């Protein structure tokens, strides 16, 4: 069967009525998550995992996995659409990936062109979503075929590269990011060792034998961490909301933003494919690029539509691109994709090169549903943008306690233990303290997901080589991957030594 045939099969899965519903709910919640400042895509996806797990409980495993991942991915890319709304209307980015959108978007709103800015952001996101999906369809087969040749040594090095990339770019201090990574790997070793069946660090406490549940930790660190932060530090966001006015963009606006949308899409896609560099970085680079390309760069910061179109396309394309390493190599490149991967593993479905052979309905169903979801988002975001703008006004005092209650419900409904609820609260406090002090928590979650796989591959490789660690450097592919990983960590350090400012990825 060729790719097209697989894609058609994917569409037949995406068009099942429950999957259309799941995609719709996903993108709807995603847009809301994007609009609400304080809940990012990461906590949105983490919070919804338990909800989807119960919703799909009656289905056979594969269908359940396909439906849940369709919903969760919808939240992820839906958030990229929603993030622009608050940036433009309130000058408050809903997501870190929409920070640069405030520069020109809010200016446009002040000039009474909020409607054009919003619709261009939606159109740009749609075009970018489709372009990155086509890229995903074209690259999926060849990349997973390459990855199929990989042995344990190559996998080990590839995963180290993934961790190095995320740690190298996350947060202000690389020492702290690396500490979080190692700490996450350590947490992953708690429980029964999968290779030898020996209990590690369990101290005869029954709940520890199955290891710390990744879901509990992710929800705690991200969702509760953010809630606690908002409770502790009152934020002021009494900005006046701009009037939206006419929604359809003018012909002139469309003409001016066509090229930025295309450039943003391709740029975002390739940045998204790279591990570690996510949507935030993509939108940032796109903004800088558009300013360079523009004939009148002095317009930027004063309401240039290219400054909205480029970055908004780039961040959406990056979220599509980020699915490539996740689906084809089984390596998440960012915090959110790490959580998506954790969700797949919960259904006993291992993302990676075998995914396309073993579970084509999950992989291709997801890809096809993303086409459907992007179309839904375009329709949702154009006429309904006024409705979503209302969500911004949800009072914090009701929202925050309800987020805590949803996290409790989610964790308890999946785990059935009070221990996980305490762990959840502890992770919430930890998440708040760590993030406040520039310890990035995204690498921790990523390491927690990758940890057991890294260890297994390391030990398989070492068993093959009779305990010789040289296998990792004598194997050419593995050596190259390790060198890239080292470069990823060393180059920012060298640049810092030279006094250059380094672009950071705050999103994770």
């Amino acid at each position: 069967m060729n790719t097209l045939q697989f894609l058609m099969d994917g569409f037949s899965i995406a068009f099942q009525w429950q999957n259309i519903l799941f995609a719709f709910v996903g993108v709807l919640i995603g847009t809301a998550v994007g609009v609400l400042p304080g809940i990012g895509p990461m906590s949105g996806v983490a919070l919804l995992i338990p909800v989807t797990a119960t919703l799909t409980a009656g289905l056979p495993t594969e269908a359940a996995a396909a439906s849940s991942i369709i919903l969760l991915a919808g939240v992820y890319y839906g958030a990229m659409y929603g993030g622009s709304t608050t940036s433009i209307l309130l000058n408050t980015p809903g997501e870190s990936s929409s920070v640069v959108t405030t520069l020109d978007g809010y200016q446009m709103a002040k000039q009474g062109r909020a409607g054009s800015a919003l619709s261009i952001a939606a159109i740009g996101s749609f075009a970018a979503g489709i372009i990155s999906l086509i890229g995903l369809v074209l690259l999926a087969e060849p990349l997973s075929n390459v990855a199929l040749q990989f042995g344990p040594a190559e996998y080990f090095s590839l995963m180290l590269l993934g961790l190095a990339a995320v740690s190298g770019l996350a947060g202000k201090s690389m020492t702290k990011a690396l500490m979080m990574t190692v700490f996450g790997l350590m947490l992953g070793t708690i429980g029964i060792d999968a290779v030898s069946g020996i209990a590690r660090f369990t101290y005869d406490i029954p709940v520890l034998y199955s290891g710390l549940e990744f879901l509990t930790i992710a929800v705690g660190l991200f969702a509760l961490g953010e809630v606690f932060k908002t409770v502790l530090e009152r934020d002021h966001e009494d900005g006046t909301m701009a009037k939206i006015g006419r929604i359809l963009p003018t012909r002139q606006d469309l003409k001016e933003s066509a090229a930025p949308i295309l450039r943003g899409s391709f740029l975002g896609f390739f940045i998204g494919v790279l591990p570690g560099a996510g949507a935030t970085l993509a939108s940032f680079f796109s903004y800088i690029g558009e300013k360079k390309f523009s004939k009148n760069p002095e317009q930027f910061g004063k309401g240039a539509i290219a400054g909205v179109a480029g970055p908004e396309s780039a961040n959406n394309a990056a979220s599509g691109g980020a699915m490539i390493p996740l689906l084809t190599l089984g390596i998440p490149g960012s915090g959110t994709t790490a959580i998506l991967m954790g969700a797949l593993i919960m259904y006993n479905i291992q993302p990676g090169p075998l995914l396309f052979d073993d579970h084509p309905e999950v992989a291709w169903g997801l890809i096809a549903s993303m086409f459907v979801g992007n179309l839904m988002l375009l329709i949702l975001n154009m006429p309904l943008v006024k409705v979503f703008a209302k969500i911004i006004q949800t009072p914090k005092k009701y929202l925050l306690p309800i987020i805590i209650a949803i996290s409790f419900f989610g964790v308890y409904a999946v785990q059935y233990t009070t221990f996980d609820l305490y762990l959840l609260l502890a992770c919430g406090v930890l998440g708040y303290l760590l993030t406040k002090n520039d310890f990035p928590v995204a690498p921790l979650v990523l390491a927690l997901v990758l940890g057991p796989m890294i260890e297994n591959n390391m030990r398989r490789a070492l068993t093959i080589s009779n305990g010789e660690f040289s296998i990792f450097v004598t194997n050419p592919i593995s050596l190259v991957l390790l060198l890239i990983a080292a470069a990823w960590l060393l180059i920012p350090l060298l640049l810092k030594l030279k006094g250059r400012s380094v672009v950071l990825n705050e999103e994770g």
Partner: protein
Amino acid sequence: MSKTFDRFAGIAFLLIGLLFVIESQRISKSSYGSAVGPDIFPIGLGAVLILLSLRLLYETFRYQAKTESGEPVLYKKFLIIFVSALLYAALLEPLGYVITTFAFLLIAFQTMERGKWIKSIIIAGVFSFGVYYFFAEFLGGSLPGFPVF
């Protein structure tokens, strides 16, 4: 960035690293005679974490602490919500989901902002009953609903 926190964290992670290295020695040796047992990975991680923590401690002596001009932190509000969340976790199983969720939400709403009791009661009630009935009755999930007497 707070120097005190960084130092504290550095020491805490240093101890965690040490603990990992020491405790890894007690993991039983692999039974099938492979060269790599289940203890190598944690020992390595512990060692790396120790090195990184030392590096962080060294860094804290080098940079100037920025004076925190941050806004007053609302400890009282947070503590009330946190303690009620702890009670929520502890009482969820004995008292059931509906009562504990309702009580927690009501306390948390009122802690966030006083007043509007009726609206708070309605939202808390709709959420706790709604989630329970949707999940337990409609979806057939298992959740301790009410006290078991």
